[in-house]
């Protein structure tokens, strides 16, 4: 229908181009509005998807844990935890002695390792000479052992042998003289220059004779002598005795745990069989309902009949477990008694020279404080344990959020506790942010307020460029470069005041934290600069006009008036780090345990998702657990984002 121009309307605009009654302006409006709507819908879909896949997790986890209780595995784990603590005491005391000996022996302790490492390197260098020597030697030996060697041949072979031997010796000498302590494959070995020449000579000698050299023998006897000397120290003797006391109850305890765990495993197998049978039956019945073939129907009916539908008698199955309590009391008492004597024998920390040994002793005293409580609470739990008590869903939920174990694909029982992953993620993010704040905020202040334009043109692109480095490249650098650097430098005595130093492994929270700090610098820097730019220019002018210096202006006026913007920037940086995957997966070491210090390895929520999501069955318990982790991660990121938006909003209102 064509509209006519109204006669009396001087402001009429021609309708122009229209499709389905929609004009050009409206079409553009709908296009952009549509785009915005799609973004919102996608967001909602993602949330829905996460919730959909994780919704079933808690009920599923609860029934899994109920089976765990019914089959008696819960009881076994109570006992097993005590055994683990006991074993740790043993291992810690063993390690403390070993580290102390290594420390006291110094370079002597590692001479044998250095020797074999150098030898391997020399062998690679002189392989052709060695082959030649072997060939010539075997010819000579053959000649010698033959019935009637001609004198000429023998002499010639003898000559050849001598030349080959000479050339081998020369080559080995040259190769070995080129080696230095800096060529060692493990830089943590203690070295001493007084051994260097002896080691070199010994390697040459060993290559020619093929026998253990006198030098090595001497070193061995000396090492033995020194070790005995260290062992004869009173506190080491005490430590050894304590170690024996710690070890003593372990075999009986182990026998006990393995006997009841056998029972529990069998119970579990039956329980699982029953549970899956139910599901299988349902599946077959569904098949029966849709099948049209008579013969097939008959077969399915038979199959259904064959499936055992009665629940196992758990009370009867768990009888051996209940009756084992007396055995348990015996081993537990034995352990407690031995531990009491052992703790009295554990020497004072100050006796030890090795820092790592001291750490182990500290750890022992930590356990000393808790182990009695552990044993008593576990004993109470075991005594009051009842397989038939229903497993409440609240316990499944708290078990997930506050559980300290994440055990998957276990033949025993899968346990999903998010705490080790959460602490790993949060710890690394906090470290990264703490390291990044001075660089990014300071950098932003400098570039925005104090630098000359020339400096700005250099610094800004460089910092923003950091954001362009792919995280896998950074992770690679962390594994290959930074880890080794941290580990090596942490050995130096003047850094030993830092908690956690010297670092034992290359892949640690600290290492990942440093890389993540680097990654978050551009984010925080850019947002901080925005915040600084938002400060009205008038503040700066007013401050300068009052006789303030540039620095006073920045610290007294500019920073306070954009503090909320900077806090928001830091929070967003934190969110960015918590969601980062590649670096934490590769660099943090992947140990699923609550880290005790920043130099421990740990795992993260993002890391576990990336690592495990590819290998789980859809809809399984593990699958649900991973989606739950994803949901937690999402909620954390969302909260951080929300808080920083709120702070920013407040800031812009007052600014």
């Amino acid at each position, binding site marked *: 229908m064509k509209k006519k121009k109204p006669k009396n309307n001087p402001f009429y605009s021609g309708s122009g181009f229209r499709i389905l009654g929609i004009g050009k302006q409206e079409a553009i409006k709908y296009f952009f509005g549509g785009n915005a709507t799609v973004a919102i819908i996608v967001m909602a879909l993602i949330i829905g998807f996460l919730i959909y896949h994780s919704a079933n997790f808690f009920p599923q986890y609860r029934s899994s844990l109920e089976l765990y209780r019914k089959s008696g595995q819960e009881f076994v784990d109570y006992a097993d935890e005590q055994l683990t603590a006991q074993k740790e005491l043993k291992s810690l005391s063993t390690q403390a002695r070993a580290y102390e000996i290594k420390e006291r022996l110094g370079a002597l302790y590692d001479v044998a390792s250095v020797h074999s490492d150098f030898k391997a390197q020399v062998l690679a260098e002189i392989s052709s000479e060695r082959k030649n020597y072997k060939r010539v030697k075997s010819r000579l030996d053959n000649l010698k052992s033959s019935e009637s060697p001609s004198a000429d041949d023998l002499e010639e072979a003898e000559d050849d042998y001598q030349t080959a031997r000479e050339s081998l010796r020369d080559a080995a000498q040259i190769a070995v003289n080129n080696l230095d302590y800096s060529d060692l494959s493990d830089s943590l070995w203690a070295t001493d220059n007084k051994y260097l020449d002896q080691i070199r000579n010994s390697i040459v000698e060993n290559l020619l004779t093929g026998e253990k050299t006198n030098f090595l023998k001497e070193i061995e006897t000396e090492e033995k002598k020194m070790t005995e000397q260290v062992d004869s120290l009173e506190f080491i003797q005490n430590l050894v005795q304590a170690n024996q006391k710690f070890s003593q109850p372990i075999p009986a305890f182990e026998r006990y745990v393995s006997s009841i765990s056998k029972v529990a495993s069998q119970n579990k197998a039956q329980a699982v069989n029953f549970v899956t049978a139910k599901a299988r039956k349902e599946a077959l019945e569904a098949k029966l309902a849709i099948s049209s073939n008579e013969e097939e129907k008959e077969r399915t009916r038979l199959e259904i009949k064959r499936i055992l539908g009665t629940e196992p008698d758990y009370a009867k199955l768990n009888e051996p477990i209940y009756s084992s309590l007396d055995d348990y009391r015996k081993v537990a008492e034995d352990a407690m008694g031995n531990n009491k004597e052992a703790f009295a024998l554990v020497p004072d920390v100050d006796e030890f020279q090795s820092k790592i040994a001291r750490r182990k002793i500290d750890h022992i005293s930590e356990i000393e404080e808790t182990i009695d409580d552990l044993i008593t609470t576990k004993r109470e739990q075991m005594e009051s344990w009842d397989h038939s008590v229903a497993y409440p869903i609240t316990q499944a939920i708290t078990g997930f959020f506050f559980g300290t174990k994440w055990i998957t694909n276990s033949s025993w029982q899968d346990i999903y506790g998010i705490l080790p992953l959460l602490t790993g993620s949060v710890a690394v993010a906090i470290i990264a942010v703490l390291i990044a704040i001075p660089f990014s905020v300071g950098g932003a202040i400098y570039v925005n307020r104090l630098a000359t334009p020339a400096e700005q043109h250099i610094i800004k692109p460089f910092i923003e460029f950091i954001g362009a480095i792919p995280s896998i490249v950074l992770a690679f650098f962390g594994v290959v470069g930074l880890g080794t650097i941290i580990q090596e430098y942490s050995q130096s005595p003047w850094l030993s005041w830092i908690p956690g130093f010297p670092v034992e492994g290359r892949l640690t929270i600290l290492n990942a934290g440093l890389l993540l700090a680097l990654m978050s610098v551009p984010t925080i820097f850019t947002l901080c600069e925005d915040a600084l730019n938002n400060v009205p220019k*008038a*503040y700066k002018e*007013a401050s300068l*006009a*009052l*006789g*303030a*210096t540039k620095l006073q202006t920045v610290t007294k006026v500019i920073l306070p*008036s954009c503090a909320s913007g900077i806090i928001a920037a830091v929070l967003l940086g934190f969110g960015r780090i918590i969601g980062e995957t590649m670096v934490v997966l590769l660099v943090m070491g992947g140990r699923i345990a609550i880290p005790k210090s920043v130099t421990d390895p740990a795992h993260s929520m993002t890391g576990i998702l990336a690592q495990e999501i590819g290998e789980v069955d859809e809809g399984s318990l593990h699958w649900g657990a991973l989606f739950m982790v994803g949901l937690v991660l999402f909620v954390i990121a969302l909260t951080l984002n929300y808080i920083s938006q709120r702070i920013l909003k407040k800031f812009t209102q007052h600014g």
Partner: protein
Amino acid sequence: MNSMTQEEPKNIEPTANLASQAVDLSPPETPDAPPRQATEQSEVRHAETPTSDHLLGLNTMVEIDDLSFSYDMGKTNTLKNISLNIPEKQVTAFIGPSGCGKSTLIRCLNRMNDLVETSCITNGEIRIMGQHIHAKSVSPIELRKQVGMVFQKYNPFPKSIYDNVAYGLRIQGIKKKNLLDEAVEKSLRGAALWDEVKDRLKDSALGLSGGQQQRLCIARTIAVQPKVILMDEPCSALDPIATAKVEELIMELRRDFTIVIVTHSMQQASRISDHTAFFYLGELIEYGKTDMIFSNPNQKQTEDYISGRFG
């Protein structure tokens, strides 16, 4: 600072003073120091322009001597050979159409133009209390403590009223609470704001009305006890009632401070100023007693502008 206080600016002969300055303070190679020749030329011009009669018997606070100024490294001059003396404890108004350079000139007086990277003095010099202010030995920080400034748009810091006024003293290192309290009260009374805000000193300054905020800015400026207060169109963002209050305040302040005010309002200039300088296209056209300028200007351009024929 020392040199400023030592040389009391009483009837200084420009040439003699300049010569001593050039030797003592500013090395000849600095671009700020004008070549000798240029000064001689300006003296010739001085005689021609009828600017100094109305200043007889008054102490000079600021001497602007043949000043040319450029925002683009000397390619074009925004100010062209300006010479004028500003008397002590008087109100001097700069008027002229937009872009005539009056704001630029006022910002030269406390070296706020230093913030513009490409700005430079191409000729002449400014002396405040006898001291050549672009000399190398002069710190702009110390200069700005003596030459305060109030801006066109009121700009209190997002802090409390008290902290705003105390800011200038705090950055000078004054921390004693009783000293600060005293100075804040004195300054707020001086800015005629004390009675309005004495009960809410800890409240945010941004909660005040526009006129109050501008008076707070004035209080903040006088808290550091400058010799000169520069006002760059202080009332342009205020309504007539707030303007009246600020004008009243300026009349009070002229007892203790030398005030230089840039204004677009000719009524304002005629109401509050003792002397008026008219600028046009970067040049000083006429400078004289305010009533003379408004009643009987010497130059045709001035008369045209004042009577509203252009600008």
